[in-house]
């Protein structure tokens, strides 16, 4: 249905372009003057009038169709049935009606549900047809209106230019809207979470057991939302990752910038960067398949008990993923040190190593630190590796051989499967998401500041 609609709209818009152009040409010829704007702009003006209002209408229609149809269906159900139903019960009823309407019948539904489902299908069908008719009517109205406006000195170019500017501004604003959307959705759900769980408990509580009874008769924990063990677990894994990535990344960058020949560099650099292009779900599987069993065997060989989903395995694999970030950012920072400093050092008789350790690295330090901060932000936001390789149970420990959990693991496990938005378990995921978002945002801002300051110094 939507496809037909869009094809029709494109056809009408193309027709509008054609008619607009033809009318403009005709006007110019009949009045024997020149047009203010090229005929193409007249055509584009008409096409915009066809396309834009109808697209806006389609969007709004799609947004509200469902709600309107649901409302109509519910109000058509005999009042004695819906009377006294809570909002939740009505939602359940609606989803039952919808699944019956789609033909997914498991138990013989109540007759009124069957009736409502039939009603729902009819209404939806009507709504779709009505949308097609109304939108096409609007498109054709737009065509007629815009075409009437055309005249020899109609300033079509300016109008088209303004519209294009408006569209471009709209597209640029999407970035702001996305950020606002993230903040709003996280804040909104997090506030609802903090209405049920005190802020103090969340940030300072030492016990994290989010599994709570959904029904009263279920056997489950009572639910504890002290996020400290989750935070420490995140930091532990990020620290292990950095312990792997910083030395390897930094030394690779030093070798590639200062020692390696051009050919070696041009081959090895892209190969190292391939590590950054591997999807994280692949790293996660690698951690489970290869690294964790290897660590376990190595631990058993020296008499250490390594958990199957140890922080070490997840952190080490995450470190591999981060190596290219550190190496390419340090590479940039070292290359950005002015030639003169390097030459000055060599002129004093310093060896390469001395130049690197005493001149280049101190000079490039802000850039390197900025890169490391960006890498840390990536490590704490990384999801798939830890979801697959780290633990689920929050444990307050600094032992890398033990299983710990992270913020991202908890977000995913709390939200996987069917989610309802009114229990603290799902809301907790949004609170954790808010913490994660703020932490990575701060790290990024600080990192960018550091890098920028450093660039200014040498430019």
């Amino acid at each position, binding site marked *: 249905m939507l496809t037909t609609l869009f094809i029709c709209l494109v056809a009408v818009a193309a027709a509008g372009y054609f008619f607009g152009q033809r009318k403009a040409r005709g006007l110019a010829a009949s009045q024997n003057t020149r047009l203010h704007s090229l005929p193409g702009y007249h055509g584009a003006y008409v096409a915009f009038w066809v396309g834009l209002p109808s697209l806006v209408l389609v969007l709004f229609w799609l947004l509200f169709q469902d709600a309107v149809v649901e409302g109509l269906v519910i109000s058509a159900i005999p009042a004695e049935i819906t009377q006294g139903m809570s909002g939740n019960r009505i939602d359940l009823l609606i989803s039952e009606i919808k699944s019956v309407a789609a033909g997914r019948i498991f138990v013989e539904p109540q007759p009124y549900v069957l009736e409502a489902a039939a009603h729902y299908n009819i209404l939806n069908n009507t709504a779709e047809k009505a949308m097609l008719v109304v939108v096409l009517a609007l498109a054709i109205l737009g065509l007629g209106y815009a075409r009437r406006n055309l005249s020899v000195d109609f300033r079509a170019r300016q109008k088209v230019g303004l519209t294009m500017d408006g569209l471009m501004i709209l597209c*640029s604003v999407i970035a702001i809207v996305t950020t606002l959307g993230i903040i709003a959705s996280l804040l909104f759900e997090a506030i609802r979470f903090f209405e049920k769980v005190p802020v103090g408990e969340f940030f300072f509580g030492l016990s994290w057991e989010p599994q709570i009874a959904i029904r009263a008769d279920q056997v489950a924990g009572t639910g504890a939302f002290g996020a400290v063990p989750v935070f420490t677990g995140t930091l532990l894994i990020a620290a292990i990752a950095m312990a792997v990535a910083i030395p390897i990344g930094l030394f690779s960058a030093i070798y*590639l910038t200062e020692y390696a020949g051009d050919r070696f560099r041009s081959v090895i650099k892209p190969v190292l960067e391939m590590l950054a292009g591997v*999807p*994280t*779900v692949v790293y996660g599987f690698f951690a489970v398949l290869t690294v964790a069993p290897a660590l376990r065997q190595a631990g058993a060989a020296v008499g250490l008990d390594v958990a199957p989903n140890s922080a070490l395995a997840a952190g080490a694999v995450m470190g591999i993923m981060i190596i290219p970030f550190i190496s390419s950012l340090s590479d940039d920072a070292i290359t950005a040190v002015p030639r003169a400093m390097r030459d000055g050092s060599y002129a004093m008789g310093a060896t390469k190593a001395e130049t690197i350790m005493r001149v280049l690295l101190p000079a490039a330090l802000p850039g390197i630190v900025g890169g490391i901060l960006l890498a840390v932000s990536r490590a704490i936001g990384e999801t798939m590796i830890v979801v697959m390789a780290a633990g689920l149970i929050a444990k307050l420990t600094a032992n890398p051989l033990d299983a710990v959990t992270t913020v991202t693991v908890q977000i995913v496990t709390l939200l996987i499967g069917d989610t309802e938005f009114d229990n603290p378990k799902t809301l907790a995921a949004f609170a954790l998401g808010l913490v994660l978002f703020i932490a990575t945002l701060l790290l990024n801002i600080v990192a960018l500041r550091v890098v920028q300051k450093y660039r200014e110094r040498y430019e």
Partner: protein
Amino acid sequence: MTTGAAPASFVSDAALKRLQKRKAADRRLKYYGLGAIGIALLLLATLVTSLIITGHTAFLQTHVTYPVYLDPAKIDAQDPDKGNYRSIVRDSFAALFPDVTGVREKRALSDILTSAAPYILRDKVVADPELIGETIDFTVPVSDPFDQFMKGNIKRETAEDDRRVTNQEIAWVDRLMADGRLSKPFNTGLLTNADSRFPEMAGLAGAITGSFFALLVCFLISFPTGIAAAVYLEEFAPKNKFTDLIEVNINNLAAVPSVVFGLLGLAVFLGTFGLPRSAPLVGGMTLALMTLPTIIITTRASLKAVPPSIREAALGIGASKHQVMMHHVVPLAMPGILTGTIIGLAQALGETAPLLLIGMNAFITSPPGGILDPSTALPTQIFIWADSPERGFVSRTSAAILVLLGFLIAMNAIAIYLRRKFERRW
């Protein structure tokens, strides 16, 4: 200065020793660097080889071929959909082993075939009802333990209690092999089947279509909006607080963890807008928001690379600012924009976490027919299979990863080719 003292020698023993030490330190640093690169390369190699070693076997699949009599008494020619294919498949297979009589043995025997065998036969007959009453050569995958046995992942030498195949079953398989009934062709099912509970029948068709739809939506949204935003910010926008704010936002969005985008998709697209769960449409929209900063940033870089002389020449002969953009600058920057877009889409293809949160990790046994049907995507399919306990899924997961990496390499190769072919230095 007195002239009596001997001039300081640059080759005194002490100096030579110092020099040696300094040079040794220099070499050490060099070796550390080489060592670090070596470790990184070794890790990459381990990653790839471990995937290939576990994954390559999944590209082949053991099949068994045997004659099946399509008994007209068991299939109604009018309605071939409802035949008793289960007993047809079992009885014809048992006919190969007339010496097996016990009920339990017979059941164990039919377990050699995939549990989906009756459905495969049904589809075959429904497609061609003429077959009813004839004896056909029927080829089906064997079930996972026997597939693993044939590929050597279950060893004959292992004690019987420790392996999933009994000695009796091995004897049966040996007999099938001796009769030439077993074959190991390329596993086309891996690419043409959708997901399944049985490893031998599970394939990637659903995931690949789902990923394709999601990327299509992502491209249709992020490509035009990304270019429009980049053109505006680079060429038209006045320098003021508002445009600064937009730029800061774009840079920050590029660094927001992907799981946060998943939370946004869940709360806004599913919660507020009420779009369907697990749909490639929602996945594509979420991925588009993540890809947008990449496209904007690379587009701006390629717009910047177009020299000002082009703009000035166009303006000089009377083009409007919009004409300069649409007719000259954007077309010239297009190779760079396309390269950036492909790289952005490649990132989006590998993205998993946001898709998990919007439910694209459901168990779905048929490929989606459109962008609103529930579906999985390649990376989420990998995640589902990685979580499955059956042994056959381990190699299928690796195989799925190899398929995903193949797509990524192809996309990046196209991007590099475009850049090499069309890049212009001004």
